[in-house]
């Protein structure tokens, strides 16, 4: 097919997630993430974007599990991999940043120690060497006075600082894939800008591929090269970011783009009424795949993993 | 599965004891006090006397049935008193805060520091033996856990939108505590209350055993044990069966309390779904 493109870091084919065979939450989602690429998954709550991210990490909570499809990551078949091997990949080759850094950090350990642990576990370093690397990692995420901050506990840091620490932990072992699930949703807008810039800079420098999961089209637009739109457990559209905003194909995407309040879009002298999603997309049109998805590897339906 | 089992077994045991207590008048073959016959004392179980007789020739089965009335009455009524005191203090302390909260907190800590049985003993010593004083003694000494739970739940509910909304809608504080907060903490209060019934039954037995609870010859499981103390070698059944009755009843209430907790805990419910 298209031989110029490198092999994807992550390849998701017809992924199905549900509770046994009774309740399906994700109905066959397929996408690739190329090395160094930032891929956005956008959708509303309940669209299945977060469980998709968790299934790649192998962190789905019971009774949820992957019921069908294939997940390939750097030559590993994530559906057949042994749990301990998957665990070894986590934090090393693939890492995740969550929405709420306070719950993702251990409240009883200094942050320097928590970052150092990554090096001890995955790189087999001894603690003193790992602690020095942890300070370096904090410095790389632009935490001021990193040596001092390494001794601080999570509650002593602001929300933005905690999220920087999470990014430092996630990127500590230079993973091939970073999954960021709403990484800045809990942060103030001025802090958000800094954290996003940081993720973009570090991943570009290291060539890390990013799966950015967000409900915020503004964030997605600024960060991602390609975007997949999820609705009701299906990937309804996938396009290059610019093309998606210029020419959204699925009515749901069009509705989503039209419904969001945009800064600077209110006309003086008028009320700022918004277009509602229902005006743009009928309920029966939602949650269907579009016939052909634009992907770097050609039409998705022909690919079998 | 496990949860359902706890709840079912607990409820079954409690209902069995309750039925026994209620129907004691009909199903007990002998009068627990009057049918004393020294000629038939210390008879082993079997025959005419289902569970044997005690040192004074009274039927143990009949005495256990009548004793269940005392145990249940003491357990349930004293726990109702405890739950009311604890809930009222806990909600008001959590809701108003300030000096009242400090006072209630201090009182709770004092109550937790004194072994409740010792405290009940002191009250019984002042009031003298009898059912009424038992209810008072046990009803005033075991409210601290209810109070704690009620207070902490109120603190977290207080800042929630619906309580704030009730305030802005003009409802009085008393009304808000009654209609907004109380229904939302009833679950944990009920659980603690149920678990406390077992404790209260044990406390009644202990006090009666010590001779300051229910006055003999009125049967209670505690004073039956106390009476059987001297016959433990000659007639062990006189001690075993009242002890078993206490065990089964306390176990029943504890299982019921556990089952209720799991049932009322919203996290457990979603996990099952």
């Amino acid at each position, binding site marked *: 097919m298209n031989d110029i493109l490198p092999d994807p870091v992550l390849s998701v084919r017809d992924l199905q997630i549900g509770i046994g065979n009774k309740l399906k939450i994700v109905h066959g989602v397929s996408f690739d993430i190329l090395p160094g690429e930032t891929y956005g998954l956008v959708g*509303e*709550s309940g669209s299945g974007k977060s469980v998709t991210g968790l299934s790649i990490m192998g962190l789905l909570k019971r009774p949820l599990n992957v019921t069908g499809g294939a997940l390939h990551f750097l030559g590993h078949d994530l559906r057949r991999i042994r749990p301990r091997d998957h665990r070894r990949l986590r934090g090393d080759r693939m890492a995740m940043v969550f929405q709420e850094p306070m719950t993702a950090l251990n409240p009883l350990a200094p942050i320097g120690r928590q970052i150092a642990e990554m090096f001890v576990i995955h790189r087999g370093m001894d603690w003193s060497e790992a602690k020095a690397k942890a300070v370096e990692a904090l410095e790389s995420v632009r935490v001021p006075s990193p040596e001092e901050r390494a001794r601080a506990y999570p509650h002593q840091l602001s*929300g933005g600082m905690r999220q920087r620490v999470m990014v430092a932990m996630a990127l500590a072992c230079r993973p091939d894939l970073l999954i960021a699930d709403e990484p800045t949703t809990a942060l*103030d*807008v*001025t*802090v*958000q*800008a800094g954290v*996003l810039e940081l993720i973009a800079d570090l991943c570009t420098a290291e060539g890390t591929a990013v799966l950015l999961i967000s*409900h*915020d*089209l*503004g*964030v*997605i*637009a*600024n960060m991602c090269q390609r975007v997949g739109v999820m609705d009701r457990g299906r990937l309804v559209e996938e396009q290059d*970011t*610019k093309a998606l*905003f*210029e020419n959204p194909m699925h009515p749901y995407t069009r*509705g*989503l*783009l039209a*419904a*969001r*309040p*945009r*800064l*600077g*879009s*209110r006309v*003086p002298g008028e*009320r*700022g*009424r*918004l*277009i*509602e*999603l*229902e005006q743009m997309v009928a309920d029966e049109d939602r949650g269907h795949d579009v016939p052909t998805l634009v992907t770097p590897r050609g039409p998705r339906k022909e690919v079998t993993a | 599965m496990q949860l359902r089992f706890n709840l079912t077994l607990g409820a079954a045991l409690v209902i069995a004891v309750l039925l026994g207590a209620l129907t004691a008048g009909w199903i007990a073959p002998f009068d627990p006090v009057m049918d004393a016959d020294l000629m038939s004392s210390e008879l082993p179980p079997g025959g005419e006397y289902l569970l044997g007789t005690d040192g004074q020739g009274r039927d143990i089965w009949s005495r256990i049935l009548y004793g269940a009335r005392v145990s249940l009455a003491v357990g349930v009524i004293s726990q109702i008193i405890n739950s009311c005191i604890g809930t009222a203090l806990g909600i008001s302390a959590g809701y108003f805060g300030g000096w009242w909260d400090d006072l209630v907190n201090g009182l709770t800590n004092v109550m937790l520091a004194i072994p409740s049985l010792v405290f009940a003993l002191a009250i019984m010593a002042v009031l003298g033996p009898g059912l009424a004083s038992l209810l008072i003694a046990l009803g005033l000494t075991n409210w601290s856990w209810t109070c704690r739970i009620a207070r902490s739940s109120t603190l977290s509910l207080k800042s*929630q*939108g*619906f309580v*704030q*909304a*009730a*305030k*802005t*809608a*003009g*409802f*009085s504080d008393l*009304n808000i505590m009654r*209609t*907004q907060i109380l*229904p*939302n903490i009833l679950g944990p209060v009920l659980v603690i209350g149920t678990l406390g019934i077992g404790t209260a039954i044990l406390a009644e037995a202990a006090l009666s055993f010590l001779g300051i609870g229910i006055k003999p010859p009125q049967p209670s499981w505690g004073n039956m044990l106390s009476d059987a103390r001297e016959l433990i070698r000659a007639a062990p059944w006189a001690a075993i069966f009242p002890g078993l009755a206490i065990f089964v009843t306390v176990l029943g209430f504890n299982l019921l309390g556990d089952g209720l907790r799991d049932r009322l805990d919203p996290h457990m419910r979603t996990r099952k779904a």
Partner: protein
Amino acid sequence: MTVAPLLEIRDLSVHFNLPRLTPFGMRRILHAVDGVDLSVKEGECLGIVGESGCGKSTTALTVMGLQEPSSGQILYRGQPLSGPGAPGRKERARIAQMVFQDPYASLNPRQTIGSTLLSQLALHGIARGSEASDRVADMLVRVGLSPDHAKRYPHEFSGGQRQRIGIARALMLDPEILVLDEPVSALDVSIQAQIINLLMDLQETLNLSYIMISHDLSVVEHVSDRVAVMYFGRVVELGHWHAIFSRPTHPYTRHLIGSVPNAEAVLGRSRGVPDPVAIPEGRRFAPDISVRPEAGASREASSLVEIGPDHFVRLADSISSPKAKR
């Protein structure tokens, strides 16, 4: 003679005592709200925007009587709404009501929607029996629900529906002022649009006045008539929505607007931050946003200065010496 505005917040301050760092250490005071002056006219929507900890929510709670002011006043049509001479809880309920941020925590899980709404009518003696149920049904229809929803419990509704119920509850007593505390920030994008449109429709048909608290600049721009930007307890810029968004002038406002991720940037239609209004020569903006204010530190004297029609910005009172001018 000017008529007193519907609601006036005068020199409002709310201070909280912070725990001392050491047993005999200095007493530390957090100035959550520090000398805020705002007013709301009839039928107007005042948007208060700022980041967490800027005091916007505390200001809202003070207006609702859920937080006592440390100093300053809140006046309703010239009558005090706080401090001595303030009306009781019941009277005040008919003046202002609030819509809360979290639609899940703002409804009593043990009460049906109907009983939540009916109990208000009963408490205030507005209506009884079938008249009361009719009112509840009308209100549910008005916010886009159906009358038989009254029989249901909160957990049977989606987030957007719950926010509609929250709005219905706030409107049940027919108040003049609605305080909206982040009314859409917990909702999905598509639901946000519905709720925002509903709020705007209700404002028009019921002639309501809104105070809308939000961290989301685009929502504030869409709904507000006037906007106040708050930063660490103070209003740093205030004015007509168009003035604030087309000529943001205070460095903090500019920083805030510049930080909003802009999807149009990928299309090369980058909006950028519009040009500021020139401020009088020799004056400086206050506070200096490059320095994070410490809790308890004394503050530089400053005031809101009019720099354009209905456009105010906070400048330091001290005027630089003439030598400093060019």
